[in-house]
């Protein structure tokens, strides 16, 4: 299991397009991926789940990867957040 705490950087927050990009990226990996935020825990491979988070700019979340390729998955997802979802 690999855990990373991260802050949402892009101005518009995780609206539809970033949510889609996140799910698309992480779905390529075999490991499980969950997001913890304000006491909610959702499946990060579920676009509907990610959208319910309504994560705005500045929101802090804990990313939880669990599986054979957890390190590679974490790297790809963190890169997305760092790049502000290319917005």
């Amino acid at each position, binding site marked *: 299991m690999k855990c990373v705490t991260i802050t949402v950087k892009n101005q518009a927050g995780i*609206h*539809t*397009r970033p949510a889609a990009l996140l*799910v698309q990226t992480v779905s390529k990996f075999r490991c499980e991926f969950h997001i913890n935020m304000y006491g909610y825990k959702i499946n990060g491979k*579920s*676009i*509907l789940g990610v959208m*319910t988070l*309504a994560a*705005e700019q500045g929101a802090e979340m804990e990313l939880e990867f669990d599986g054979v390729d957890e390190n590679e998955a974490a790297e790809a997802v963190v890169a997305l957040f760092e790049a502000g979802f290319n917005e």
Partner: protein
Amino acid sequence: MSEEHRIAGVTASTGIAIGTVHVYRRIHLDTDFRSIDATQTDAHWSRFLQALDQVEEELKRIAALARNESGDEASSIIETHIQMVRDPELHHMVESHIRNALKPADAAVYEAFSSFLTIMKSSGSRLFEERMSDIRDVRDRIVYRLQHDSTSQPALAGSILLADDLTPTEVVELARQGLKAIALNSGGLTSHASIIARSMSIPTLVACKGWSSVADEGCSAIVDGTAGILILNPLPATLSAYKTKQKGMDTLRMKRQSLTSLPAVTTCGVEVTLRANIEFEDELPHMAESGANGIGLLRTESFFMASDQGTLASQQIFYEHAAEAAAPHPVIIRLFDVGGDKVTDLREKEANPFLGWRGIRILLDRRELLREQLRAILGAAGKYPGQIRIMAPMITLLNEVDDLRTEVARIQNERVSNELPIDPDVAVGIMVEVPAVALQANEFAQKVDFFSIGTNDLTQYTLAVDRGNPKISDLYQHHHPAVYRLIDMTVKAANRYSIPVAVCGELASDPDAAEILIGLGVRDLSMSPSALHDVKDRIRTGTCEEMTKKAANRIGLL
């Protein structure tokens, strides 16, 4: 004992049908669902998976369209919808609703989506309204598919279908399942659903309001398409009167059918060519029964709308079947006339779709779509030389004709260099439906191989009246002298430059109008196959002199 109720409607397709009521709802949003038996859970789960595949296919097709139309922005939104369809959490929740809570598949989907929507609503973020409508859209698509699975529909054979509104594709699907008659809350006479119902000879009423509070599923009913009434729970006396009436109409129909093999000639010896307007494969057999001399208008929009079609091969096969059914007569294929009321999938709404991006305007913007269709048409033409003609909808400017001809030549050359057979003389004509074209008919006549007057659009553009708007339906006057004057100008220009001119709008199916059109010099009428016998009957009893007189009276140029 239930009471007899009579509800007035507007006749869209004549005839009488007696049957039992089936209320058709596109999507049942009342989620007061029955529960299922434990033995049915596997079936519901697999239906859910099947519906997901169908919706995904549908969305991919829309995404491809959107990419062409408005770039990556719109298509990425639809890609997001596809991700929702594939959402693993959604699948878990639906499975649990089906297997543990014994909900039917449609209710399970509805409730799974509701729980996501509830969370989103409670967070109160400004981002939500937009997202929620996206999510609802995906939910409704899946629920729609589940509720339209033919195995989940009650038997329709012999039923009188009551619905709010129907799409043309729904009419065809339902007719296949054997329905007898239709009564719609909304809809207009010239809506596509009405046109299809007419061509399939299904008695149909539109603007038939107020049945929802009195009609029970399975109660007996009569649709009298001729008088324009729906009768619910008819008394025994009413029922027997209608049975007698129905017999009388059958006799009349037999008499009409004897006209099938006779030519449409006036008593003074002028021959008129009568052709059929066709949209669906299922209509082709009705064409032979009607005695039409080929297809004057082959609509092709169904390839644009149906979820499982749009491929080059299936288009070309349809055109070839049409050519076979029409042989030795011609088939006039109208290029995709999407836009306005016919495009339901494109997500961007235009403020004035009828004055907007439609017909040839779309095709010349999206050349690949046009080329794809021309490949299918010219492929069929190579196989059935001399029979296929191309007709462009919504032409407004002269240079649109030049652009279209360039594309036709390009595809013909492509076929030649691939050593495929071609018909070198495929005619390229236009619909005359924009008043500007009628006013410039002399110029257009020198550029095109034929004219076909589309009276529905010509009427709405001339009188500036939306034919789908019930508030102003009294303004939509087919017989307005201004419309006939534009037709007159078009016919004169066609005669001056010796090109054929036809009328393929709904006007041609009205025997009174047909007389006026013949009086104006039109010798080629195309209409719904079911209208053909009545028009022929009228032509065979009249003279050209009378018709010319009627035309002059109507047009006000005595």
